[in-house]
């Protein structure tokens, strides 16, 4: 999956993640200033990690703040501000903080800062994106100047990975309105919501030698074609969310290159199981056999995708179950299921829109094949605006989109657990729920893996979440920008490129 060597992996376990060898073996060089364009930005842009919602926010937050842990290229959590994070029973965790880490505006990082930063997520008025996860913290308290104790409501082996998310980055204690004062590799120089963020090198960064760049200007260019043009015209040096159709353009430029990251991002067709007709098992089986996955991979994503099998764990995940048979396009079986379901000729609207990548086109593919087996699927295209609050999960058939999460537990807990707020399909599977809870506390790694395998099989066989492909993330960059090493947690090196890249002009 990733082009990283064993050596860089081991180095990554120690003092932060060293740049791997993907883009040139030259030694990192200090200095230089770059402009980076992501695809989304608005007046809702924020300096508050808890409220980060878009790629631009994540990049900004990882520039300014540091987290207790960070996810490595191996999808495993590594220590960052936390020197050690240990637990005997996976319910009570002891964190030992790194000493001598300083905030941009002065003051050493202490346990009080961490306690403040974690507990604020439990305040409903804050509107934290991690409120449902922070609900698991029954207690967060200081244990001396550099020690923190977190007590969870139940055992969860994945706490270190959860804390690596940008939302849990650490603020100075007592910060009512975050202003960029963190312990991150860059200091804030200018912040205009919806326009730009400028950050300059933090000479006192706790990872010695880093960062390399003097200055990063972060903007957003929502229009994809314009984003590519800005890169090719030399106005920006790094962009994310390159459309598969545009890769040829970037590659044909001698001064630019693309960086592809196979990721766990997927757009899925949600067939509500608590409603009819979408809850009819024959209907769901038919839909799964109507998906021409190779066509979607080839035509929609030009090969920049991994074929999916209607369950959310991608093939390159440590817990992926390789023994589930791949569902393929089979019009005869689909027709048989449709006839059995009695839905021949019934008009069924699918809600799709640009809010979900590839949704409209995937719906077109389904519509086309559906017509051949007697299914009348009608595409209702709805604008991106208001999609998540009005259409997502609200109709018998709609599209959803799920970003990569650091652990299998998080994906399953957020989207497939019976009582999850975003149980997209509304299914209820007691066996699945039971396995999910058991896996959180399971100490034996083999048994834990077996549980995740069974969960994937259950979702594949019974759930109305239809996942045709996992979408690869494509960044475009200037060849002089070195050190970019794709990270499965997201584009732009899992949004953490800032401290890892250097300018070799």
């Amino acid at each position, binding site marked *: 999956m990733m082009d990283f060597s064993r050596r860089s992996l081991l180095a990554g376990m120690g003092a932060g993640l060293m740049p791997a060898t993907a883009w040139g073996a030259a030694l990192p060089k200090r200095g230089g200033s770059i402009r980076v364009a992501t695809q989304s930005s608005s007046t809702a842009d924020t300096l508050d990690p808890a409220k980060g919602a878009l790629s631009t926010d994540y990049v900004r937050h990882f520039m300014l703040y540091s987290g207790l842990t960070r996810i490595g290229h191996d999808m495993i959590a590594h220590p960052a501000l936390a020197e050690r994070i240990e637990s005997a029973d996976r319910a009570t965790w002891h964190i030992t903080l790194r000493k001598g880490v300083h905030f941009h505006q002065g003051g050493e990082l202490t346990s009080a800062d961490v306690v403040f930063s974690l507990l604020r997520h439990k305040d409903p008025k804050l509107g934290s994106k991690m409120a449902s996860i922070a609900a698991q913290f029954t207690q967060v308290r200081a244990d001396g100047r550099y020690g923190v104790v977190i007590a969870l409501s139940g055992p969860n082996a994945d706490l270190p990975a959860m804390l690596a998310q940008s939302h849990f980055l650490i603020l100075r204690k007592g910060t009512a309105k975050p202003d960029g004062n963190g312990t991150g590799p860059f200091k804030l120089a200018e912040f205009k919501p919806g326009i730009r963020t400028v950050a300059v090198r933090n000479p006192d960064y706790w990872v010695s030698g880093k960062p390399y760049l003097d200055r990063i200007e972060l903007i957003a260019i929502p229009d994809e074609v*314009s984003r590519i043009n800005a890169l090719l015209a030399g106005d920006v040096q790094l962009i994310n969310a390159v459309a598969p159709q545009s890769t040829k353009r970037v590659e044909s430029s001698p001064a630019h290159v693309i960086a592809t990251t196979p990721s766990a991002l997927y757009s899925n067709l949600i067939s509500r199981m608590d409603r009819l007709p979408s809850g009819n098992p024959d209907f769901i089986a038919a839909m799964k056999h109507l998906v021409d996955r190779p066509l979607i991979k080839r035509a929609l994503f030009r090969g920049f995708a991994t074929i999916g099998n209607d369950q959310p764990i991608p093939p390159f995940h440590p817990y992926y179950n390789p023994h589930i048979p791949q569902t393929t396009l089979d019009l005869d079986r689909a027709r048989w299921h449709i006839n059995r379901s009695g839905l021949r000729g019934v008009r069924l609207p699918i809600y799709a829109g640009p809010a979900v990548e590839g949704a409209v086109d995937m719906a077109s593919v389904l519509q086309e094949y559906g017509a051949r087996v007697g299914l009348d699927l009608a595409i209702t295209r709805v604008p991106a605006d208001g999609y998540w609050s009005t259409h997502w999960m609200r109709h018998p058939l709609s599209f959803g989109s799920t970003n990569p999460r650091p652990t299998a537990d998080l994906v399953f807990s957020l989207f497939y657990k019976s009582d999850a707020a975003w149980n997209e399909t509304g299914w209820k599977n007691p066996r699945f729920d039971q396995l999910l809870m058991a896996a959180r506390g399971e100490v034996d790694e083999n048994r834990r893996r077996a549980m995740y395998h069974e969960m994937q099989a259950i979702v594949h066989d019974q759930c109305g979440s239809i996942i045709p492909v996992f979408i690869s993330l494509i960044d475009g960059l200037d060849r002089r920008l070195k050190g970019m090493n794709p990270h499965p947690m997201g584009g732009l090196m899992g949004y953490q490129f800032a401290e890892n890249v250097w300018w070799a002009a």
Partner: protein
Amino acid sequence: MVGGMSGSHRQQSLWPLLLRRIGSALVTLIMVSVVIFALAGLLPGDAAQEALGQSATPEQVAALRHEMGLDQPAPVRYAQWLAGMARADAGQSLVAGMPVAEIIAERLPNTLMLAGMTAALAVPLALAMGITAAIRRGSWIDRAINLASLSMVALPEFLVATLGVLLFCVKLMWLPSLAMVSAEATWSETLRSCALPILSLTVVVVAQMARMTRAAIADQLDRPYVEMARLKGASLSRVVLGHVLPNCLGPIVNAMALSLSYLMGGAIIVETIFNFPGLASLMVNAVTSRDMPLLQACAMIFCSAYLLLMLAADMVALIANPRLRAQ
């Protein structure tokens, strides 16, 4: 009704009209704000839901709604906003958590600059094209101008802008592809980075203005008074500039004002393609984030700009054609 005075008292007679226009402008502004408020009420979801996004839990939404004051009934919220406006306070942005005035102040100068520079290019160009075409009616010049102005609007705006970027930014690398205006930039830098947005917008607005100019003048050319003047030996261009133009200035200026008002709120596509930090994209942003005070502020600005342009147009028409004031 308004001051049916003779031409000699022209100056004085304009004042009551101006005052009345300001009064009706206020009425229009209030009507717009009501319409915007009502329209936005039709939108699914609210600022609290949009801010929390996909991950919202009901308790969070309720808490944030209370924090934003969205739990109050709509008429109360409107009244509060109106009271604020009466004190020249546009309120606090629900989403960005800072005063609306501050956000607007960041972008209004950009939009005014873009619109101003486009107008400075487009208006003389359109007048020259329209007048030349009218004077040389039926000649090859007329046809050429006609065809040129038609082809200008024959392609979608986003295609024209994208073609411009491909040619001048990516291929030739003469101009930057982003209109990044900032306080530090010098005038020539700003002009260079805004060149393509200005050209794209000019292409969009110039055709309508040129064609209306030509149509209005051509329409007058067949009038007896033109023939009379021609018989007296005046050249056609002199008749057009001296007699015809003042007579048909009303529709021309009107068409121009209409086209120019497009440069404020209609520039959304150009703003998007060139990443220009202007008001139109801010307003779209306010719609998608359901940020009512910000949305209202943008609507008020666009409306005022339009009203000012129309007022200017009408003043020009009145000065040019005093008989209108007898109406």
